[in-house]
């Protein structure tokens, strides 16, 4: 089946690319291949892409030695057209871009309520309805984890922003509480925006948050619990002297937001940092205070990186170089590195870097300036849909926990129809990778394991080019932990043969055509939320290839390009290189929860969160597959799949409260 697909007439592939069309902000308008309307110039373009495509395919066939007879793989040639189209598109310009997918002949997809209601997650935090964005002020207090969030009480789109509130005993089972703060003052009438909590040594809480004033100026405000003896912290009081900070000279009124948790300086003062920009240079301002009411601005910046644009949701915290526990935000010392993280307004990516903090002047420098915060090369917590993230130190369990806003990748018409938009990622612990020393490692909080119901263990040898159905029953709420091993012979063949070209550096999840493009040693992994016929599927996989240093490089991707036949959803291929150390097996964990898939490679060294909107791989029709699309290598997969229970997140009620206090 596969081999003949390879020889489909070019025109068929041209007309029906499954990969998205890109809309570039500054692109030559003639270049935009926007679905149905093609101007004559585009005919020429199509022909040249077609030639490129032929050339690529000839190369692919030429490098293959013909032993593809047992090829029952997921073999789709249509997606390779996208390689040519996407060539030359930079990572940055793709951020947040709508890529209209689907071919000109399928009618606009009409969502029905059954499909839309399936999309709601079972165990990810989300309000009952309407719009949510940034996580705010997460903290642990008097036995309860608190979570606040940017919320629109009136619509499923951004606007009228207030602070939503929920509590939990275990970061998984949440109870919705009344809105904590509304836009009722002149200094936050245009929005009660993002902020962070600081827990003082005496256990009391101060909350700093950005208000958008009645004149749309961004200012920082102080708030605190009205009744500190109320463990649910239902009511909040805004400091009458607000705002406590206004944009300083040289900073524009719309470039001053998202104050961090404060940390103690060696002088005994509290210090915070706030992201901003100077022209196109992203910066983080530093302020000291003793009472959170009056501040002195330091002359120095915490850090600055040119050409990164506005820094939103800056986060700054210590990580241990040696231990796996988290550290209170005020910790310093020789066994500690500091992380600076910022959300890039321009690209909607969260970036971080590991470095050294100098308390004497409130500055920080990265260990590796070539991957400084915000550069396209710099590290990201997550290579998928993941923004405005924020950590807090959980003093209850001695860990640092990361929250993140996971927005939708569908149309606003669908959001309005289904009545909600956005979820939060599963909270993750964050630690420095003590084995590599230069990146963070994240992992879903252990409490999520309490949702695991029945499980099945599998040990399967997957030959090249095959797809294996994994019978687990219902497949929309799963936790999968897997280990993979490529057969030694194939590895030796690639590494031992000097004439095998190093291709790893050229490979990128986004641009290399997705999970159907076959290499010697990959791709292989799971296809989640797949129909029986694989008409819709979301592969999560490793791609192993030889690198320039003649060592193997491993890339971890999630390919959403065929996750849905709907043409009004964004379907990128996400991912990145994942460090694999000598002696390590390849491991991945996948959390499937309806319209969200969270994938963790090598214990959380590389993480990918995706939003998917299948139209038929839903309810009982959603299946799980294991696949190996490598040309030569046999892969042995050892894995366990758990059915996941719902977290039953619901509004406050006497029973809900009692149930939670019993745990």
């Amino acid at each position, binding site marked *: 089946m596969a081999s003949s697909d390879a020889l489909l007439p070019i025109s068929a592939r041209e007309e029906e690319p499954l990969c998205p069309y890109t809309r570039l902000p500054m692109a030559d308008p003639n270049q935009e291949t926007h679905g149905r309307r093609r101007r004559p110039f585009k005919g020429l373009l199509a022909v040249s892409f077609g030639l490129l495509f032929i050339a690529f395919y000839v190369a692919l066939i030429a490098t293959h030695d013909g032993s593809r007879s047992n090829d029952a793989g997921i073999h789709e040639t249509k997606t390779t057209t996208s390689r040519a189209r996407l060539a030359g598109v930079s990572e940055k310009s793709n951020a947040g871009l709508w890529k209209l997918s*689907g071919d000109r002949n399928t009618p606009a997809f009409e969502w029905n309520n059954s499909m839309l209601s399936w999309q709601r997650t079972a165990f990810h935090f989300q309000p009952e309805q309407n719009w949510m964005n940034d996580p705010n002020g997460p903290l642990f207090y008097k036995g309860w984890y608190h979570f606040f969030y940017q919320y629109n009480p009136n619509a499923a789109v951004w606007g009228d922003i207030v602070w939503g509130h929920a509590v939990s005993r275990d970061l998984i089972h949440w109870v919705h509480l009344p809105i904590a703060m509304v836009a009722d003052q002149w200094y936050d009438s245009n929005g009660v925006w993002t902020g962070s909590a600081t827990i003082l040594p005496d256990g009391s809480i101060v909350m700093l948050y950005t208000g958008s004033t009645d004149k749309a100026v961004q200012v920082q405000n102080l708030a605190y619990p009205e009744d500190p003896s109320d463990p649910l912290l239902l009511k909040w009081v805004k400091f009458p002297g607000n705002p406590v900070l206004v944009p300083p000279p040289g900073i524009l009124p719309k470039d001053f937001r998202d104050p961090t948790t404060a940390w103690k300086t060696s002088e005994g003062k509290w210090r915070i940092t706030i992201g901003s920009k100077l022209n196109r240079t992203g910066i983080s301002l530093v302020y000291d205070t003793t009472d959170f009411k009056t501040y002195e601005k330091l002359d120095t910046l915490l850090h600055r990186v040119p050409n990164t644009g506005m820094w939103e949701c800056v986060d700054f915290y210590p990580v241990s170089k040696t231990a796996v526990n988290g550290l209170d935000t005020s910790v310093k010392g020789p066994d500690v590195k500091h992380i600076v993280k910022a959300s890039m307004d321009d690209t909607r990516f969260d970036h971080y870097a590991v470095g050294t903090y100098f308390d004497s002047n409130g500055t920080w420098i990265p260990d590796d300036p070539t991957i400084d915060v915000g550069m396209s090369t710099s590290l990201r917590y997550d290579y998928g849909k993941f923004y405005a993230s924020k950590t807090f130190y959980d003093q209850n369990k001695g860990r640092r926990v990361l929250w993140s806003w996971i927005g939708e990748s569908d149309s*606003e018409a669908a959001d309005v129809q289904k009545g909600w938009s956005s979820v939060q990622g599963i909270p993750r612990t964050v630690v420095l990778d003590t084995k590599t020393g230069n990146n963070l490692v994240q992992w879903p909080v252990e409490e999520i394991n309490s949702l695991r119901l029945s499980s099945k263990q599998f040990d399967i040898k997957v030959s090249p080019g095959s797809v294996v159905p994994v019978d687990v029953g219902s497949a929309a709420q799963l936790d999968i932990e897997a280990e993979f091993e490529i057969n030694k012979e194939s590895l030796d063949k690639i590494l031992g043969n000097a004439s095998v070209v190093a291709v790893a550096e050229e490979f990128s999840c986004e641009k290399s055509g997705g999970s159907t493009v076959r290499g010697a040693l990959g791709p292989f992994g799971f296809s989640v939320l797949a129909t029986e016929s694989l008409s819709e599927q979301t592969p999560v996989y490793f791609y192993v290839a030889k690198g320039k240093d003649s060592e193997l490089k491993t890339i971890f991707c999630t390919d959403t390009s065929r996750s849905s036949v709907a043409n*009004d959803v964004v379907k990128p291929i996400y991912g990145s290189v994942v460090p694999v150390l000598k002696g390590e097996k390849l491991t991945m964990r996948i959390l499937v929860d309806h319209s969200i898939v969270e994938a963790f490679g090598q214990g959380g060294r590389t993480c990918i969160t995706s939003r998917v909107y299948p139209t038929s791989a839903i309810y009982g029709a959603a299946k799980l597959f294991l696949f190996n699309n490598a040309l030569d290598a046999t892969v042995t997969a050892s894995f366990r799949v758990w059915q996941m229970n719902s977290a039953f997140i619901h509004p406050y009620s006497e029973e809900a409260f009692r149930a939670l206090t019993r745990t």
Partner: protein
Amino acid sequence: MVKMMMMAMMVGVAMGNIVDKTCKQTPDYTLCLSLLRSDPRSSSADTVGLALILVDKIKALGAETLGQINEAYKTKPMLKKPLDECSLRYKTIVDVDVHTAIIAVKGNPKFAEGAVVDAGVEASICDGGFTKGQSPLTSLTQRMEKICDVTRAIIRMLL
């Protein structure tokens, strides 16, 4: 008196230059100029103001298209299904995307960018619902997509 006239002229030229400079950074300079210059507010607007003028154009075009959709129900009743989809999509543009863009452009422009991009997508999806050659809305949806592209480019200058 002459001095005042000259100053006014210089200011006028400078203002006109802002429109020119801004439009040069969009994917469709000519369209951008014609849209902005057709609105007298553009001569004294900053980037936020220019973005809002274009969002107004999106709203107006959206309303015009909804009118055309209503007409088409009568003249081409066999196209009811795709027209229904278009009606939903264009209502989203006019009621939801435009509103979000207006409030966000002044405070948190990335949400305005998302709304404007979505407007272009909704227009595209609407037109895509008709089989080739059947759509009575193609030139309107194409125009919407172009205006959204230009508007998006201007909003990105605010990030």
